[in-house]
């Protein structure tokens, strides 16, 4: 750490909190908080993957929840067919998400701007309807997963603490990967494309190819989150890829700070804790959350990370 900044301090505090959480949960006997934070960590992973294309790639995908569903359904369907090994389930989940991202990305990247937002939204909605039509795998009602992915003794997903640490390790791994990508030549080209696509093309970069690769990487990462989420809830249903979930993910990214490394993680933690807090306060929590989002958009430029950065400058 070269210099001390408020945002770095807050990030470090949060990460330490996430690592130490199971100890607190064990000491206080509060199991609920561990379950809640497992979900938060998984969705933070999804938000971080969305941040890769939104923040660094400049691609505003409004259909990111589709990968949560695809990863989840890969686990659920294999479990249903008697393939319980995580060594098969997880690679299949990642491969399925990558394939979907490749097809959708190749089509969607023909457009830009608001068209891109709408197209990714429409394709995710298509995936939602396809899942609703899967009569063999529960259709609308969803699919119960009776046994979590089996990693043959390496790690036991049914153990809350082990599962939490697996999710946290995945999150850290993905954030590390995003950091490496963002600072690589590939990532710099992407950020160049975000700022000025025409100029980058003029220099001679095949813009669509770079963006598509980024899109696929991001989708694969989110597929991992989907596979973890299905294991967490022991259940997967079309509802995980409903478009409001894609909206939630976008909100987490923006709230935390788009294009920053840990912003989406902070955004996910704050958003989901706020949701939890408000829903305990009143049944009509969305009545407060909705206008709150509006205010964040209107006044909170740069999200929480931006705010912390301004604090630092005084």
């Amino acid at each position, binding site marked *: 750490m070269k210099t001390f900044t408020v945002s770095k301090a807050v990030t470090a505090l949060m990460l330490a909190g996430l690592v130490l959480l199971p100890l607190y949960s064990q000491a206080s006997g509060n199991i609920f908080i561990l379950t809640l934070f497992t979900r938060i960590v998984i969705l933070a992973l999804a938000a971080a993957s969305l941040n890769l294309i939104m923040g660094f790639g400049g691609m505003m995908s409004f259909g990111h929840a589709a990968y949560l569903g695809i990863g989840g359904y890969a686990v659920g369907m294999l479990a249903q067919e008697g393939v319980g090994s995580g060594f098969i389930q997880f690679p299949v989940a990642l491969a399925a998400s990558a394939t979907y991202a490749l097809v959708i990305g190749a089509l969607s990247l023909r457009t830009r701007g608001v*068209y891109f937002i709408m197209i990714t939204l429409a394709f995710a909605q298509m995936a939602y309807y396809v899942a609703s*039509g899967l*009569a063999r795998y529960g259709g609308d009602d969803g699919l119960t997963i009776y046994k979590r992915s089996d990693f043959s003794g390496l790690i036991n997903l049914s153990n809350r603490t082990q599962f939490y640490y697996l999710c946290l390790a995945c999150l850290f791994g993905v954030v590390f990967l995003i950091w490496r990508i963002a600072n690589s030549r590939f990532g710099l080209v992407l950020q160049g494309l975000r700022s000025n696509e025409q100029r980058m093309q003029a220099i001679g970069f095949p813009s669509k190819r770079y963006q598509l690769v980024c899109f696929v990487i991001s989708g694969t990462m989110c597929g991992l989150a989907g596979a973890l989420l299905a294991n967490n809830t022991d259940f997967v249903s079309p509802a995980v890829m409903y*478009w409001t979930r894609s909206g939630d993910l976008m909100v987490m990214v923006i709230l935390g700070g788009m294009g920053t490394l840990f912003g989406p993680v902070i955004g996910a933690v704050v958003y989901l804790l706020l949701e939890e807090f408000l829903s305990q306060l009143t049944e009509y929590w*969305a009545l407060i959350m909705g206008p709150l989002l509006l205010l964040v958009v209107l006044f909170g430029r740069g999200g929480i990370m931006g705010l912390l950065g301004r604090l630092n400058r005084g």
Partner: protein
Amino acid sequence: MLLVVEQFLNGLQFGLLLFLLAAGLTLVFGIMDLVNLAHGSLYMMGAYFAATFAAWTGSFLLGALLALGATLVLGIVLEMSALRHLYGRDHLDHVLATFGLILFFNEAVRLIWGPAGLALPLPAWLTVPVPILPGIHYPAYRLAIIAVALLVALLLYLGVMRTRIGMLIRAGASNREMIGALGINIKLLYTLVFGLGAALAGLAGLMQAPILTVQIGMGENILILAFVIIVIGGIGSIRGAFLAAIFVGMIDTLGRAFLPNLLRQVLSGAAASTAAPALSSMLIYLLMAIVLVVRPEGLFPANRR
């Protein structure tokens, strides 16, 4: 034959309804450059207003008229209080802010009307089947929807192409700074356009209400269809929205009606009955994908830039 004609009309009716929704969306986008996800909420509010006012007044038509006015006012209030501040901002900001509005509207409806849906009963004179061809009857209400929607489409066309306000709207769409500089009250114009779009969405909602139940979230699925239509038709183009809406309405309705039978002739019974519902709901998205591959800017792009 009977079924074909009936489904064809159903498709036309659905398409026209989608047009009302898509027209408002594309107007608001074309002129204010605002992506309004909450457009589906205005559709929902139109339906709820109609059900409430119809129950109060005891008359379907009076209820519908009051609901139309109420959605118009709601749209204007919404524009003046919140959305006005979003003009000129990033599209992503629009998406997030209006996403928040959807959450708000859904929850407000749940608070006011309760989680259960409402019904909007039709008056007797609209429920009679009308003979349209020898031996073929079609519900009067659906014919009425077709007539009203076509009339509104015509008025919209004349209004935009032939009146002074329409001229200003078109001018605003092609260069907003310039018409502001020419002394046109652009704020008022924007509010007006947004109100018009809201009223169109409300009209679609209240006309659809007697066919489906009035429920929370009813605007969300149809909003996505409206997006698909705009993308296919070309953003900002009313003509494109009209043709694409009819196209999508037809394909969706006819696909759902006839695809299962068609598939059954190719596939085994069980496979066909599993594949058909998924495939028919995918159909319009496939169509959109094809349009995007062939013409990324939509079939009838408005002349912008």
